[in-house]
């Protein structure tokens, strides 16, 4: 059981890349992009084919992510230049990608068990540097080594990767371009009236979103040890569930970017934990998970509606109170000033 939970955290961290992608399209750009089901597999397909043919796994992973970016851009162009409704553009891409993914893979399933993947490389480093011993030492000293998973390499590597990705994303979303991208999802007319080409922001934004999704797919196939043409089925709902779980459990009413990206990552981990627990329940089959996921999303879409309302109210009160405080402080300062001048005059 404990081992299963550690496994859930591991894969949660990897799937969190995908959840961040979904967060960008659904939440920031207000673009319900269903390309995800396809681009997730595309990332995995590109990487696994390259890995099998002996390419360095890091290059293969980057290539998977890059192809994901291109795929997302096409969805964006279908919508902006082709005037196709976002949902339809995504579905078209999803369907088209099924064929393309099969072409890339050449067969519906590619085993990677004896190939060099990023995880085998990390494991090698781990062993040659004897990091396990170093990391385990404090746990052994505390006598809780038995509760720590036997191999920490993937967990540590995935955490480091996630921290880097999160930092980069947080930074990007608060740059001038990133802020404009967020505003594009909020009020496109306004952004255009300030001379920004919203089409470019949408295309690049959906590109970045699918880049993260494909990156995630590429990591997942290496982690699982195989690529499968059906790996992406329902992925968009898993992504949404992660985003929503994160927002509900971890955002604490704040929608600052830094907080929300963290919430989404944690949401992806919690989703994997729910998944792991559900698998332990006797009468549930692995295939029931899609239904459970859909139910989570439905529940989570309905509940935050009123949660959000109370949040907005609280925030409004808070900001009003802050403003009043500031004003009072200023009035005080001014009062003192005029007092001082009055005194100096007398």
């Amino acid at each position, binding site marked *: 059981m404990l081992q299963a939970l550690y496994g859930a955290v591991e894969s949660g961290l990897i799937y969190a890349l995908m959840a961040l992608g979904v967060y960008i399209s659904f939440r920031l750009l207000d673009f319900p992009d269903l390309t995800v089901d396809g681009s997730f597999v595309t990332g995995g397909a590109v990487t696994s084919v390259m890995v099998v043919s002996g390419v360095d796994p890091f290059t293969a992973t980057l290539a998977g992510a890059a192809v994901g970016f291109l795929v997302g851009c096409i969805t964006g162009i279908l919508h902006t230049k082709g005037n196709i409704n976002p949902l339809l553009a995504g579905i078209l891409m999803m369907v088209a990608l099924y064929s393309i993914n099969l072409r890339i893979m050449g067969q519906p399933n590619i085993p990677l068990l004896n190939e060099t993947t990023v995880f085998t490389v990390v494991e090698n480093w781990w062993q040659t540097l004897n990091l396990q011993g170093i990391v385990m030492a404090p746990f052994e000293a505390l006598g809780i080594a038995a509760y720590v998973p036997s191999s920490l390499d993937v967990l540590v590597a995935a955490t480091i990767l996630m921290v880097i990705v999160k930092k980069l994303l947080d930074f990007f979303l608060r740059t*001038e371009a990133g*802020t404009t991208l967020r505003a594009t999802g909020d009020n496109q007319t306004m952004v255009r009236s300030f001379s920004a080409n919203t089409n470019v922001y949408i295309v690049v934004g959906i590109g970045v979103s699918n880049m993260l999704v494909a990156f995630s797919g590429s990591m997942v196939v290496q982690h699982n040890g195989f690529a499968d043409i059906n790996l992406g089925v329902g992925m968009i709902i898993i992504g949404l569930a992660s985003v929503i779980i994160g927002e509900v459990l971890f955002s604490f009413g704040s929608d600052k970017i830094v907080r929300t990206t963290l919430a989404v990552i944690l949401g992806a981990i919690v989703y994997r934990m729910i998944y792991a627990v559900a698998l332990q329940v006797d009468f549930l089959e692995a295939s029931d998970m899609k239904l459970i996921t859909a139910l989570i999303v439905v529940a989570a879409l309905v509940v935050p509606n009123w949660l959000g309302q109370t949040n907005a109210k609280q925030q409004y009160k808070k900001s009003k109170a802050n403003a009043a405080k500031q004003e009072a402080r200023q009035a005080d300062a001014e009062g003192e000033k005029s007092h001082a001048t009055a005194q100096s005059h007398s």
Partner: protein
Amino acid sequence: MLQLNHIHKTFYPNTPDERQALVDLHQELSGGDVVTIIGSNGAGKSTLLNTIAGSIVPDEGDVVIDGNDVTRLSEQKRAAYIGRVFQDPKAGTAPGMTIEENMMISLGRTKRRSLFRGVTKQLRQQFREHLATLEIGLENRLNTKVGLLSGGERQALSLLMATFTEPKILLLDEHTAALDPSKEELILRLTRDLVERHQLTTVMVTHQMEQAIAFGNRLWMMDEGKVIFEANDETKQDLTVEDLLDQFQAIRGKKMANDRALLTK
């Protein structure tokens, strides 16, 4: 500063729904001119502003801003010259973003958006100073989501965002019409302050005749896609609302019909 050369615009041409929205409109504004536009419903006032802004492309004629022919320029490229406030207070700001983020986006009107940090300390200070000139306390709420502001506050922010980067042309389409009277007065006062401070060439559509007479140095009365009467510096001062209505009746042989027109105040 702004030249409108023989502009024609017809909606749904050659159909039963054909509407001639602008008919051979030919006007010119010099730098610093502030023109108010009045006219009946469907006179073409909004169409004219949309044509200047580029959201509507004229069938004939061209729009020249500060010597540049912008007729073929896309709306968002043209926005580099133009500040705009819409009638709907919700239209000019992004509700889910904070006041400072909104201000930062408006800053991008004049320059390329970079991959550097958006709202810096320096900028924040600058924003605070600009917001303070509105005198409604927004300078203390830089991190408030704009969606939480009242209509009047939001419109004041829109106005500031449209003006503080000093566009060549400021377009205002009944930008006080959706507000209650006290807020309307506030926004009008702020408009006057900002236009004067930045010496903006301004085109303002209003449904209030009094306002149209009192505000700015020129006045156009529009009907059926044309400017049918105009007043400038000298003639404008002595105008009364009755004069305007009489003029309209004399020229058109009918009463001016505008459901929102306030003839007296």
